């Protein structure tokens, strides 16, 4: 029998012991995965998804300051209605932001990126459900800004600025009963649907966005608006470690005086980071518990092998081979637990997301929206911790003389 086959067999040496370790580790892994995935889920409960159209969001990866051309009354409404944001600035001033402002803002201290967007509503001449959402809201921006806008394409691709192409949100694709390759007609023009966008769990910004290139949107709306240079929103991404409120205040002060007009700044912040424990702690508590659990289970399982290790030493096995056996077994147990844990977690999460959050998702598209990083990191954490947990009792056992180890109970 080859040594690797031996390791494999040896991993499942005692049914009850193996079951014990695998179930302990599986529970820990589910804990890590759920906490990783559900930080996004918790946020989502505090963010009304329709609100995304205003693009008001600030999670730990991107800080957006949003300026727009609406009166503050509109902003206050949205903000108070959702309780997610607060407003600094004047309350009674109308603000127009134009494209020249973008370049100026780009050079401000602490600003990482600036995107100008233009949002308008269309009534598509299709069988759009008029009882429900009778208007298709479309946001235009340059397709190169996909990343800053956090547009998550789950099928197809991003639109091309120079072609008559559009990306629709998953939700509206369902309402319109369209798929990639079909066309929708907006203001008497046909657009090919080239991609579907959907929210990634944990990201609250771009979920239900229908996107088209900015020039087209502006043009389509040209009749209504007399100044084509006007943007609907400017989204500013703030560099990490910069204070978002301070930057907002600076911008407000500066452009108020220079442009000789008042600015209304809408700084948004995610409520979960304000009223809950700091995000990191919230995330780390379950992970910390899970890591301790993994350590305990693996340590116990290796410790229980002390007698076996004594026998193998007595018949002439070198410490190196004993270590490879222990590490190999730990690896196999971790992978089994990870697979069982991941599948369980996916099913649990699917249930939560679809029933509680009322999302209309089938399992496959649910999988597509998942943040695969959570799984990768969890896998690396689990393997790392388990190997460390296995190493210490293995070193201890290999230091005992075979006679002592053989007597071990």
């Amino acid at each position, binding site marked *: *029998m*080859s*040594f690797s086959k*031996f390791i494999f*067999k*040896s991993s*499942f*040496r*005692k049914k009850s012991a193996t079951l014990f370790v695998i179930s302990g580790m599986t529970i820990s892994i589910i804990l890590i995965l759920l906490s990783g995935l559900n930080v996004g889920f918790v946020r989502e409960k505090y963010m009304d998804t329709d609100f995304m159209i205003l693009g008001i969001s600030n999670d730990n990866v991107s800080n957006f300051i949003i300026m727009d051309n609406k009166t503050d009354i509109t902003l206050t409404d949205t903000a108070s209605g959702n309780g997610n944001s607060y407003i600094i600035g004047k309350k009674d001033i109308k603000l127009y932001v134009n494209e020249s402002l973008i370049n100026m803002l780009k050079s401000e201290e602490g600003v990482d990126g600036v995107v100008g967007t233009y949002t308008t509503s269309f009534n598509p001449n299709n069988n759009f459900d008029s009882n429900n959402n009778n208007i298709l809201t479309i946001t235009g921006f340059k397709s190169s800004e996909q990343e800053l806008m956090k547009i998550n394409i789950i099928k197809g691709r991003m639109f091309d600025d120079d072609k008559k192409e559009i990306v629709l949100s998953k939700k509206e694709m369902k309402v319109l009963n369209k798929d990639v390759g079909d066309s929708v007609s907006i203001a008497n023009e046909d657009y090919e649907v080239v991609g579907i966008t959907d929210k990634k769990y944990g990201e609250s910004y771009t979920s239900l966005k229908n996107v088209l290139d900015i020039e087209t949107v502006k043009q389509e709306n040209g009749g209504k608006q007399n100044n084509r240079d006007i943007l609907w929103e400017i989204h500013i991404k703030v560099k990490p470690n910069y204070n978002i409120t301070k930057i907002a205040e600076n911008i407000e002060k500066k452009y108020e005086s220079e442009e000789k007009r008042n600015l209304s700044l809408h700084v948004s912040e995610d409520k979960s980071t304000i009223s809950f424990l700091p995000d990191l702690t919230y995330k780390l508590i379950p992970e910390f518990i899970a890591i301790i659990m993994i350590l305990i289970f693996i340590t116990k399982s290796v410790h229980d092998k002390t007698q*076996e290790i004594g*026998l*193998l*030493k*007595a*018949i*002439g*096995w*070198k*410490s190196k*081979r004993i270590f490879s056996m222990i590490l190999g077994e730990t690896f196999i147990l971790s992978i089994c637990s990870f697979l069982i844990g991941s599948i369980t977690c996916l099913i649990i999460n699917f249930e939560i997301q679809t029933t509680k959050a009322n999302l209309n998702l089938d399992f496959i598209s649910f999988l597509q929206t998942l943040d695969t990083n959570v799984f990768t990191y969890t896998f690396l954490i689990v393997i790392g911790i388990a190997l460390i947990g296995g190493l210490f009792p293995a070193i201890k056992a290999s230091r005992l*003389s*075979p*006679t*002592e180890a*053989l007597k071990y109970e």
Partner: protein
Amino acid sequence: MANIVEIENLTKYYEKGSVKALNGINLTIEEGEFVAIMGPSGSGKSTLLNMIGALDRGDKGKIIVDGHNLLSKKDLSTFRSQTIGFVFQLDNLLPMLSSIENIELPAYESKTSSDEMRKKALELLKSVGLEDKAKFSPVKLSGGERQRIAVARALINSPSIILADEPTGSLDSDNSQKIIQLLKDLHEKENITLIIVTHDSNVANQSNRIINILDGKVVNDSN
């Protein structure tokens, strides 16, 4: 003939010196001898056997086995795997492996391919009369059968010395005799040095030499 075991004034103390398990052993064993070690419980028989098999280190004195100075040698695992075949009182077989896989265990350290390993293990299984039980787990074997598997396991690396610590201690007289006969045959055919610790005078009487131990010292040597 050459001495395969040379022991001079070997001591092994436990519990900070309050237990003198070996208290100045002097002993030489020649290559190809069949030696029985006897003595009351707690006299130090197992301790002595463990010293010869390098399962534990002595404190003082000198112990040279097959040319290896065991008190100063750093890596004992190679010595254990190449020179010694150990048969324990309890067979110590691993229950998740089949009989044949248990026999193969020591061979991982001897650079044999898994095919060669299997071939050799099958031969040994045949020589202990259990070729039909190759795929059985030790859990499904009788005590005597398990001990025969343990003997086969001790032989897979072709050791020059077999050490057996009461290999028949848990067996009835029929099964005991089978095990002893097996070891005796080996000793006669292959000229393997055989050292057995036993309480059983029937077993001891089949050896060439009986050494009696008391309180960690050799008190009588039939040589």
